[in-house]
């Protein structure tokens, strides 16, 4: 082992990963259930739960906006972090390129999501 150690900058990605993993573990199953199953099938929830005005209002609300942003972007960071690690685990040592690609995607999603949400106004 080398005597002069370089400090790993992993804490940034690890922090995003951890936050995303935790947030998605808490909420994503229910979100999938609501948006992907219950509402489309008109099951359990009242009709019009996700009507345009309601959703717009929700997404214009400060908290609603923040929630959607956090779920989408952090989950993505969580995911690309795992994918990047898995590449290594499968013996693909793609190095810097793969790292840039993975975290680049997460960055892109974060930006698109932010722009989209901000565009909805307050």
């Amino acid at each position, binding site marked *: *082992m080398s005597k002069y*150690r*370089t*400090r*790993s*900058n*992993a*804490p*940034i990605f*690890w*922090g995003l990963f951890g936050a995303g993993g935790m947030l998605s573990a808490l909420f994503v199953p229910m979100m999938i259930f609501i948006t992907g199953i219950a509402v489309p099938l008109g099951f359990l929830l009242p009709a019009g739960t996700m009507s345009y005005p309601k959703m717009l209002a929700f997404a214009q609300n400060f908290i609603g906006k923040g929630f959607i942003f956090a779920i989408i972007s952090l989950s993505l960071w969580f995911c690309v972090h795992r994918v990047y*690690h898995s590449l*290594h*685990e499968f*013996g693909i040592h793609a190095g810097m390129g793969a790292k840039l690609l993975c975290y680049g995607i997460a960055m892109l999603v974060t930006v698109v999501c932010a722009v989209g949400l901000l565009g909805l106004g307050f």
Partner: protein
Amino acid sequence: MSENHKIIEIEVLRYNPESDEEPHLEVYKVPFTDDMSVLQGAQYIKDNFDGSLTFRWSCRMAICGSCGMMINGIPKLSCETFLRDYYPNRIRIEALAHFPIEKDLVVDLSGFIEKLEAIQPYIIPKEPKTLAEGEYLQTPKEFNAYIQFTSCINCTLCYAACPQFGLNPDFIGPAAMALLHRYNMDSRDGASASRMELVASEEGVYNCSAVGYCSEVCPKHVDPASAVNINKANAAKDYFLRFLSPKGGSK
């Protein structure tokens, strides 16, 4: 031994660096009694079939940490694993995974030892005390904070269990991190900051992807996985603290 002893087939991964290109399996038929450990099976082979079979062992009581092997693919201490639990099936023993094989079941541990040496595994006192002043006091709470991490016997089963170590042999790894954590958590010690450099380095905790198998195979319930993972949080704190306070965090 009695007349009616049973015979178990032991398949051993053999490798002699002076004559073999790569390891190969050999099967031995070993008579055994119910109290015989896998280690005793290997000793039987060495004493009766082939004196060149090579493995480490000493205490026979799961405390010296030398007799680890892959037993049917799982890292175990061979002295506390019993042949009866595998009979009548064949049992396969191999050198601990992820380490280079020196010969037969003996692996190269020099890397592991270097890691132990690198973590400053000794008390660097917070408040030095002379012997005449007597012992440091430790409340049950202070004691319980570190005692679990003192039980590591350096058997390296956790390294044989950790794929991230297999993929990156420089990873400081579970047992060394557990020992580091043991000293950090000791109320007598005051050197966690100086150990942080290693924790947060490229060889440090972030190589771990929380596979958790290290803790699963640990024969002494050290729970090295938790030591590694707690230190991810510590290292992250240290990383960001640098920006907040001029003194905070190590270089």
